[in-house]
């Protein structure tokens, strides 16, 4: 810390660099997907010395992340704050009526997209999506997911809308818990992210039916004796026209300078080059699409609209009080 005090004029020669510790806000609890990713990024940055200042991770999970977003909204112009986002960037303001919108932040970069897979128990009679849909029409099936009026329940509503099969959505606190509830047979199906359920798939307890993406997953390594990630059909192939991907993106507060955004864009690009990051991407079968700048903004605008439509149709919008 001594040099920082002694030589304030010595830095900032080549582009902008952080001058104090960077706060990295996670609008979710410890242990979840966003938390894991943020801490991996923090670990990579410190291990490879990608930034002179330390990165301090802060969880602000209150109100499905509303707390973290409001904090970032209030920190206008602060270049030493980053936010990692998940789908609650769109869903939380819509579901709770908290005054916040993604436009209150500066988009930096999309790190990856998280996939969703429809899982059932391996010893269940359902081998295809059509089996599940037929069974659900026959007797209401219980579909477990993380949180309420968030991504998992939005997918559940979209399945019902597309296929006409009703599901009882049972919310739990975390993805790992949901997967185990399915293994234990307390619910009938889940839409877990790959990373949350992969170990149960490999141990032979769960069966993936389809992936909610318009193309198959990339991994061709055998995960079980017979299947790799790429062997899972897309839901569209199976006759269920639903696709949903979850944003894992990095944002800054509004009102920051372009050179500051550029610094973090470069930093995250370096992070994505490291072996640790590639390992994480492979483990979690993430969709490796990355976007920055205007393309990212366009994507965000489109997704925001899509969430509004999906959530309105499902009746998830907050009642004006």
């Amino acid at each position: 810390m001594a040099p920082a005090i002694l030589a304030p004029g010595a830095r900032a020669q080549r582009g902008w660099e952080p001058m104090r510790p960077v706060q990295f806000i996670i609008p979710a609890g410890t242990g979840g997907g966003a938390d894991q990713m943020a801490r991996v990024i923090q670990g990579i940055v410190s291990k490879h010395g990608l930034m002179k200042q330390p990165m301090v991770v802060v969880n602000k999970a209150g109100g499905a992340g509303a707390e973290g977003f409001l904090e970032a909204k209030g920190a206008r112009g602060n270049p030493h704050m980053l936010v990692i986002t998940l789908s609650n960037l769109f869903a939380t303001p819509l579901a709770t009526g908290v005054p916040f919108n993604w436009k209150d932040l500066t988009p930096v970069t999309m790190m990856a997209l998280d996939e969703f897979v429809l899982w059932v128990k391996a010893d269940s009679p359902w081998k295809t999506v059509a089996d599940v849909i037929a069974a659900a029409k026959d007797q209401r099936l219980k579909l477990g997911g993380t949180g309420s009026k968030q991504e998992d329940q939005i997918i559940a509503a979209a399945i019902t809308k597309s296929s006409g099969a009703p599901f009882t959505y049972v919310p739990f606190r975390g993805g790992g818990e949901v997967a185990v509830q399915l293994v234990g047979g307390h619910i009938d199906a889940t839409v877990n992210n790959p990373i949350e359920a992969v170990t149960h798939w490999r141990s032979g307890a769960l069966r993936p039916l389809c992936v909610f993406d318009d193309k198959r997953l990339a991994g061709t390594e055998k995960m079980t004796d017979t299947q790799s990630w790429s062997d899972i059909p897309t839901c569209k192939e199976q006759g269920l026209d639903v696709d949903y991907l979850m944003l894992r993106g990095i944002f800054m507060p509004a009102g920051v300078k372009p050179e500051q955004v550029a610094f973090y864009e470069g930093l995250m690009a370096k992070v994505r080059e490291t072996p640790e990051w590639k390992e994480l991407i492979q483990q979690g079968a993430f969709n490796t699409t990355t976007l920055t700048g205007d393309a990212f903004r366009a994507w965000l605008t489109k997704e925001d609209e899509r969430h509004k439509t999906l959530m309105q149709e499902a009746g998830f919008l907050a009642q004006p009080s």
Partner: protein
Amino acid sequence: MEEIGLLMQGFAVALQPDNMLLMLIGVVLGVLIGVLPGLGGANGIAILLPLTFAMPPVSAVIMLSCIYWGALFGGAITSILFNIPGEPWSVATTFDGYPMAQQGRAGEALTAAFTSSFVGAFVAVVMITFVAPVIAGFALRFGPPEFFAVMFLSFASFVGMAKGSPLKSLAAMMLGFLLAAVGMDTVTGQLRMTFGSSEMIRGFDFLVAVIGLFGISEILCSIEDGLSFKGQKAKIDLKVVLRTWKEMPKHALLAARSAIIGVWMGITPAGATPASFMSYGVARKMSKDPAGFGHGKIEGVIAPETAAHAAGTSALLPMLTLGVPGSPTAAVLLGGLIMWGLQPGPMLFVEQKEFVWGLIASMYLGNIAGLLVVLVAVPWFAAILRVPFPIIAALILTVCAIGAYTVSNAEFDIVLMLIFGVVGYVMKKLDYPLAPLVLALVLGDRTEEAFRQSLLVSEGSMGIFFHNWLSGGIMAAGIALLAWPLLGWLRGVIASGMGRARAA
């Protein structure tokens, strides 16, 4: 016994000099983290996790699990000395630990707490070593109705505990439940009782409330009688450890029962906090001298500490075998495993033998290292009470403010802590019991959640709580525990009624 061979290999890994050094550093760091309220457990490990990314996975997990042990041990220190629980599961330890410290028996209470923590954790580790695969499957049987049944049992074992006015106990408990409900309703995503304030969205964190209700209010209460803390004159040296140890074998049965409760609650996975409350409640109900609890009874320290640590340790089992964390700390460790390229879950025991057994061996060694470190430090910890009041009061206030802030990085929580401090002061002086409030606050929302998840699953039928022998059995045990004092009371009424009839 394949396990023994694998365990020995594990010991060989853990006993390498550099791993031993990491173990020692981990324990010391952990104690420090546990002592600072708010920083403890999950936060502490999350903070230190990135430091370990550069190490080999086995060394990293050895260091982190030693931090975990250290934090488990450290949580008891502030509970006993200042009535400030550093961790949720040390709350029950304050009930008798703090009165003991006030009576000048701080060294005794600390020794009892550390020793029983060790025993609890040790039982759990032995269990993990030998019956892991069998027991892991058991956790799968716990769906929402079973989870609710366990919560119900925790409440049932605690009800009837409070002294004084039943109306005031009820009011305190209702207040606890209401505070727990503030914020987002996890089942519907609806905001409840936030009254439009963005500070209320977060809800009332248990630790913020407890730091105020217990810690701050205690300072206010104790200064009424002059500017000093009680219990300063305790004679403290290492002999107190040996003296207390001589007493401990008397409580072997209590420790065994508490360890079983703890292990069971850790696997289910209800976690360490309900385990500590349940164990304390059961110890009191089964005691020959229930009225002595809450006034500095050593059993009141042994029971919750043993159970909390047995639960905290066995909570690592569902994390390793199922990928479900039994505690927030385990959740952070889980993230670490993934970062090191290890996929927790059923395949871990098959594919990563060296890692798993290295970890289990480090549990044994870390636990022993932890016990030695904290026991040697007992006189120093207890000597803190001799620091002049003005200094210690200001330091406690500072540490409380830091603790309240770090729970969720909110300045408003420091204000809340102060409000809770005044509320706690008033409630204590009016004989409103704080234990039911705290119990309701810490378990309230999980209980409601499990209840409503169950009804979602059953489509509204209450019968689901008795749908199989497991949840039905736990519910029945809970009802029996609730009915126990009622039966005694009824018998008394009938007996006196008959007596009167005979006299007439």
